[in-house]
């Protein structure tokens, strides 16, 4: 009964892992070689110390956070209403939510520029603020497939209709129901959607570049053209950041109410949900 480990499976797994890990290790190794003859974090230091880096990163971060806020405000009530009152519309809404994956961002952004350009009734591209608004809207559109799916799955996991009725029978208005009952119960789904949105928007290139915004994506590309070691360092940092996002998503998604974020100890028993 002593089964040998399936050699072929292990080999395939190793080959698969190597496919991802070798370039990553190579890039990391390369990023450490800016100072000739020794391994150092000089490239990272050079990137982090540059003013440009901080300004583009904070610009992108703010734009991404606004995209998350706007996306949540649009997607959560929509998904809620569709599930509660228009269940027959769900296939259509789901299809619409996938459109950003089908239409290339370059088409989207050229559409924006034509629609909201100089000769438009709403010439958003004429001002700095207007262009930033377009950028955020573009990010929202790009993240809709992920945000909608995450939120809709979150709502599928709880009985939206009955919870809504329970809250209403206790006197809660629709707004209070969404705020106190629906929202907290799909919080982990929203957080997942938010992290996905963040990681998409932060490195987004096409829309950002064509709207000529001073953001992280175009900066990354520019660095790649101008320097050797710094882009490798940036790539590794971006990779690490994405991983942190994924881990946080996982933690939030698997947490149950009344439990700590990390379960080193027993579930806490102090009163929590009332505040």
């Amino acid at each position: 009964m002593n089964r040998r480990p399936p050699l072929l499976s292990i080999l395939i797994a190793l080959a698969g892992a190597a496919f991802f890990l070798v370039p990553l290790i190579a890039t990391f190794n390369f990023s450490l070689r800016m100072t000739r003859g020794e391994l150092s974090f000089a490239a990272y230091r050079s990137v982090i110390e540059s003013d440009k880096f901080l300004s583009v990163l904070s610009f992108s971060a703010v734009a991404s956070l606004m995209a998350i806020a706007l996306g949540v405000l649009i997607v959560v009530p929509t998904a809620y209403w569709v599930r509660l009152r228009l269940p027959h519309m769900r296939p259509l809404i789901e299809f619409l939510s996938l459109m950003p994956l089908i239409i290339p961002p370059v088409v989207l952004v050229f559409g924006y520029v034509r629609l909201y350009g100089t000769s438009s009734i709403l010439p958003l591209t004429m001002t700095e603020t207007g262009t930033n608004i377009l950028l955020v809207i573009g990010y929202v559109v790009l993240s809709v497939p992920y945000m909608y799916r995450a939120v809709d799955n979150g709502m599928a996991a709880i009985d939206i209709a009955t919870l809504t009725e329970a809250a209403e029978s206790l006197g809660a208005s629709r707004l209070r129901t969404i705020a106190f009952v629906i929202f907290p119960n799909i919080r982990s789904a929203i957080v997942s959607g938010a992290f996905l949105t963040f990681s998409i928007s932060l490195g987004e290139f096409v829309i950002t570049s064509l709207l000529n915004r001073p953001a992280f994506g175009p900066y990354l590309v520019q660095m790649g053209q101008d320097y050797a070691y710094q882009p490798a360092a940036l790539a590794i940092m971006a990779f690490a950041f994405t991983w942190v996002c994924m881990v946080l998503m996982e933690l939030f998604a698997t947490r149950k109410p009344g439990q700590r974020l990390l379960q080193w100890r027993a579930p806490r028993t102090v009163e929590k949900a009332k505040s």
Partner: protein
Amino acid sequence: MSFLSLSGINKSFGANTVVRDFDLAVESGEFVSFLGPSGCGKTTVLRMIAGFETPSGGTIRVGGADVTALPASRRKIGMVFQAYALFPNMSVRGNVAFGLRIAGMTRAQIDARVAEMLDLIALGHLADRYPYQLSGGQQQRVALARALAPRPNLLLLDEPLSALDAQIRTSLRDDIRRIQRELGITTVFVTHDQEEALSISDRVVVMYKGRADQIGTPAEIYNHPTTRFVAGFVGKLNTFDARVAGTDSLAIGGQEFSGLRRAGLSAGVPLTVALRPEALSLHRRPGDDLSLPGRVQHSSFLGSVIRAQVEVAGQSVSIDMFNRADATLPVAGAPTEVWFTRDDVLVLPEASA
């Protein structure tokens, strides 16, 4: 003036009419059950009382006020759902406090009321647990406490016991009735389980195809069903084809019985008579005055009851007899006599089209 009154309620979903001409008056403090097969409209009526559905016609009054157009959130009605519907993000305490917070009570008032409600359902020690940490029976008790906490005018229970296993179902049923009596709250209970409806209610509304077929006390419903549907749906029933024989007699299986004449029918008219399994016996009991010959098909021992299947007048008939220590099982194939009393014979109205 009744406390809850439904008059002329109709409800259609598109071309599909699910509730027709439904009238009901419930007195203050009364416990009324809606009993019927699935799809009979009982849940729809309950949801209209709660305000989750709008009637296509008719009016709903609670405490004299017309609430037909009032949204659910302003009706002050407590509701318990089949699927518990506790808020997963809140502890037991948070769930019970929810309606009180919405009502804008102070923290001290809320704490006092929550403690009182948790005492009522004997779950004070689980106040800080979350719904996923509770059993189904505990969750449903919390749901009951949550519904009752804001002192609603009316308590609605939508098949609250259906998702629970048999033992919990019986004990929670008794709890619900005890709490309802203690608080004296007017209650409407929906179920498809006749034993549940008969055991818990002051009055039962048997519903069939969107109508109230019969409204009455559990004993009236069981002993004197007024429609063929109620007779067949509530309890087990043996039916016999019979015929009006004379001015004062019916013929059942070639034998004439006097004193069973249904008024207003002329001789020869076919009709159906029915007998409950427990109204029949293979031994003559005091008071038994009628009998029919039969042949035992088989019998089974069910503990407190001995159930025999007997062929009578070409039909298979169920007979339930209480078990006694000296009782013997009827032997299959043996000829026998089936005894009953005149008063137990139900003459069923002809099936309405």
